[in-house]
């Protein structure tokens, strides 16, 4: 039984593309899935290995796909050290587990970086209206936790709301020390100009608000990521095409990367993520939006499940004002390259030498 199960799994996945439960963001005809499936089928040895592993899993544990896969996951290697066979193994294992857990056909993509691609992101700060649709699209696309207890809700994108500063006539001569007739600092002790610190829990009736500007931030996918340097088990790393990713199965939850990130882009799964079955996006990537477990760190990965197959990240697709741009930095004709060449561009916290691939620009 177990021996027949593995090869049969593939046509099943094909059928899954017609599944009605897929959200609009899911890509049914992802070309990469076909390629990697071909890779997977390459060589009969690989097949037999996977069948053996499958039967071993069935023998050691019950029919409960979750229990048997979790057992195997405990002993798997760091994703980058896995052989192709082991990767295919891990992938099949996870697909089986997630499919049974969420009651729909889930695919776990393992497509690697494509040659000649270095992903880049650009955001027009003038255009952003602070509607936060990107935040919600990201949560839907990437299977973030949606709980209500404090710490259960996870959002990767923050849209900071910054109040415009106030200059007023009655304050123009305020300053310290007062009452001596000697003015030393003008308005130095009250906010003047733009307020530096932001808030992101704003909830206005209509956006954009008159007295606010917006600054969306998420993972900057640094070229020299401080989070990668501090990781004691090398679970987080920069992929060859740019994004910094996490092997969720290798993360020990030490949270050092969260200390190191100057953009506060990482979130910790304080408890098992709350992900309703019907809201789960079944098109996933191993290093991307596959369901996470308790006690690990997660972050934005520029929707690898989409961008590795020539699609835009969910936040880019959803932005109603077109403030978000995405493309290949190595292609001089891509949108991002053209923006870098022609617009006024800046990076956040450039003084820290993290060299983000996330650029802000204005016209």
């Amino acid at each position, binding site marked *: 039984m177990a021996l027949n199960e593995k090869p049969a799994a593939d046509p099943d996945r094909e059928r899954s593309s017609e599944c009605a439960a897929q959200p609009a963001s899911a890509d049914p005809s992802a070309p990469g899935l076909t390629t990697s499936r071909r890779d997977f089928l390459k060589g009969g040895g690989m097949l037999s290995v996977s069948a053996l592993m499958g039967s071993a899993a069935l023998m050691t544990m019950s029919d409960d796909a979750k229990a048997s896969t979790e057992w195997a996951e405990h002993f798997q290697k760091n994703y980058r050290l896995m052989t192709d066979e082991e990767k295919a193994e891990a992938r099949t294992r996870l697909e089986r587990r997630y499919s049974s857990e969420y009651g729909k056909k889930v695919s776990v993509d393992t497509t690697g970086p494509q040659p000649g691609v270095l992903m880049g992101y650009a955001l027009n700060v003038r255009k952003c209206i602070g509607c936060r649709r990107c935040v919600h699209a990201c949560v839907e696309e990437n299977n973030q936790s949606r709980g209500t207890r404090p710490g259960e809700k996870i959002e990767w994108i923050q849209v900071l709301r910054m109040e415009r500063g106030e200059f007023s006539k009655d304050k123009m001569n305020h300053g310290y020390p007062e009452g001596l007739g000697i003015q030393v600092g003008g308005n130095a002790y009250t906010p003047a100009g733009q307020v530096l*610190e932001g808030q992101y829990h704003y909830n206005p009736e209509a956006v954009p608000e008159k007295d606010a500007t917006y600054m969306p931030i998420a993972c900057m996918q640094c070229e020299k990521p401080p989070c990668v340097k*501090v990781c*004691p088990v090398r679970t987080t790393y920069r992929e060859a095409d740019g994004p910094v990713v996490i092997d969720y199965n290798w993360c020990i939850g030490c949270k*050092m990367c969260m200390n190191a990130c*100057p953009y506060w882009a990482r979130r910790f799964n*304080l408890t098992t993520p709350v992900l309703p079955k019907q809201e789960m996006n079944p098109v996933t990537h191993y290093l991307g939006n596959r369901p996470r477990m308790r006690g690990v760190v997660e972050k934005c990965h520029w929707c690898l499940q989409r961008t590795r197959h020539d699609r835009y990240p969910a936040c880019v697709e959803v932005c109603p004002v077109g403030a978000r741009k995405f493309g290949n930095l190595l292609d001089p004709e891509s949108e991002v390259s053209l923006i870098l060449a022609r617009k006024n561009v800046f990076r956040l916290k450039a003084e820290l030498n993290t060299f983000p691939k996330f650029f802000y620009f204005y016209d």
Partner: protein
Amino acid sequence: MQQLISFTTDYTRYILKGGTKFYAWMGVLSAFILAMLYVFYLQNTDGLIVTGMTSQISDGLYLANLVFLVGVAAGAVTIVFPAYVYHHEGMHKVAVLGEMLAISAVIMVMVFVFAHMGRPDRLWHMIPPWGIYSFSSMLGWDVMVLNGYLILNFICGFYYLWCKYTGNPINRKWFIPLVYVAIAWALSIHTVTAFLMANNPARPMWFHSMMPIRFIATAFAAGPALIILIFLVIRKNTRFWVDDSAIKLLTTIVQFCLGIAIFLTLSEVVVELYARTEHANGLYYLMFGLHGLTGLVPWFWSSVVLMICAFVMFFMPSFRNDFNKLQIPCVMAFAGIWIEKGMGLIVPGYIPSPIGEVTEYHPSFVEWLMVLGIWAFGFFILTILLKGAIGIMLGDIKYGSQAVAAK
């Protein structure tokens, strides 16, 4: 081999025997340890959500205690150093007790690491050949130096006890060099822990090179302060006599290091707050509160008051020379530095967050119980180690004779 077996059995038998006071003390500690095991179970079924930590403040009491206890472990060197480098008579007699304290402090640190991790079941990912060791990570180095320190102290301490037990002379050829290595190593553990914090430019409050020296100064105040307290307890409750000269030297060390720690803290305050850049927000939050949130302000000022009062009290001969009153400034220094390292250093590093968000941190009951439990666990081990060591030093346990019950 014969000797080793009898060493183990004699040692164990000696430890198990004790008066009502001893059993009551161990019983209370065990209760706390059981409570700790329960909350550890909670953490590993429900997740760290049962603690007060959030994504904004991702390290709390656990890391604070870890950092503090690394200091206590390093502080043991204040006994070993004068004993072996300056051949201080009184210190030499008790050097092995300092090593026992270092062992239990490092074990507590390790348990705090376990409590702090999101996935303790994956700890083996750090250990080659099954896992990967990362040389670029400060946490990796911290684990390495801490384990090294544990091993060094274990070897030095128990070899010394072994020689006392069997009556063999100490092989100074390798023992003395190893002691010197352990002394240098003690500095390395706290320096690496300081680097663990200070090497994060994302956290401006920690990002300065004064951190290691401040860590060492506070460690050499808090560690010996605890040792003095333990020595006073030993003098009262056992036949083992700790020389006055040893306690007096430790008092001097505590006082000087406390003075340096206060000076370094004030320097930092002046440098940060004179210009009052955005990067001083963490310190400003700690001292005066930020955006109306003042959770840590009482902690900071109580720490300052405790440290300064202890410093002044150490100057007064009535406290310094009276071993009945010496406990007061020692407890004050210890508590002051515990607050300074924990609530005053780790937590405000996260407030405000790198994007300017001010969130307060309130440790949950689970966290407090876990911290108490781990401290109890540490004292449990410390009591066992000290009791055995004292028994051997007193000659109660000796090779070739039946073990005698401790008083």
